């Protein structure tokens, strides 16, 4: 964690991630906002890599930066008239105030609390060659019930999404 590359990567990727998120807020067109969202997600995947979460970083790129934007593009294109406007609603000022309050609070707590964290040699001891093995073992071992429930949830979401948007051809 001490090497210069990690520090530079952290600050660069953090700036891109937060800047992309702000771009989602400021972009006037929804498709442009979506591009900023993908930028933010890819930068966050890079941050996951600096935390030695290689499997999660790849899954993040596949799902957050790949699958979900495709879904959103489909939804935007299916609603052509209203879909493009990324304007602000009635709750602009309260939303901004609450967002700023949450960000300041979390940042203050994060800096202020004395975390019982690892650093230096102890941290290097916990470096993984790859995390995929350990995650797979945990998923089918200790967390197998949650794993099965997640599969049922995905099936329910799949069927639900199809049923919701299906044209009723009987009538």
């Amino acid at each position, binding site marked *: 964690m001490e090497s210069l590359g990690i520090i530079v990567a952290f600050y660069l990727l953090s700036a891109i991630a937060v800047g992309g998120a702000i771009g989602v807020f400021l972009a006037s067109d929804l498709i442009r906002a979506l591009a900023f969202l993908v930028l933010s997600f890819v930068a966050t995947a890079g941050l996951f890599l600096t935390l030695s979460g290689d499997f999660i970083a790849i899954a993040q790129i596949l799902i957050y930066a790949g699958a979900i934007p495709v*879904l959103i593009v489909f939804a935007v294109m299916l609603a052509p008239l209203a*879909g493009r406007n990324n304007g602000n609603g009635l709750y602009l000022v309260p939303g901004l105030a609450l967002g*700023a309050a949450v960000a300041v609070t979390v940042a203050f707590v994060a800096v202020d609390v004395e975390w019982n964290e*690892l650093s230096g040699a102890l941290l290097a001891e916990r470096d993984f060659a790859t995390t995929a093995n350990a*995650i797979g073992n945990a998923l089918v071992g200790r967390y197998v019930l949650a794993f099965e429930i997640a599969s049922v949830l995905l099936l329910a979401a799949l069927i639900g999404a199809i049923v919701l948007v299906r044209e009723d051809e009987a009538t």
Partner: protein
Amino acid sequence: MTVDLAHYLTVSGLLFGVGISIALAKRNAIAVLMGIELMLNAVNLSFLSFSRFSGAFAIKDNPLDGHVFVVFVLTVAAAEAAVALALSVLIYRRRETVDLDRINLLRW
């Protein structure tokens, strides 16, 4: 100069704040969904950083629990995005708009 847990949590808090602002301030239902995805993503970042830096657990005691949590969050986010976008397409088909300020069917 090092990068430690507080730095990652600060970035996570910033992302969550921007996400909550987008989710509350935007008028378009799909933009609100983008804000929610940003918030989930910020939570994933804090999960992973706690998992990486955690000194509270012994080294051999399930060191990757945070990663497993993130896998479940990714699953739920994908399911939620699919259902939410199906709903917005459905609302557009019925009401010709996805403007949340004009979807006030449940208002008294």
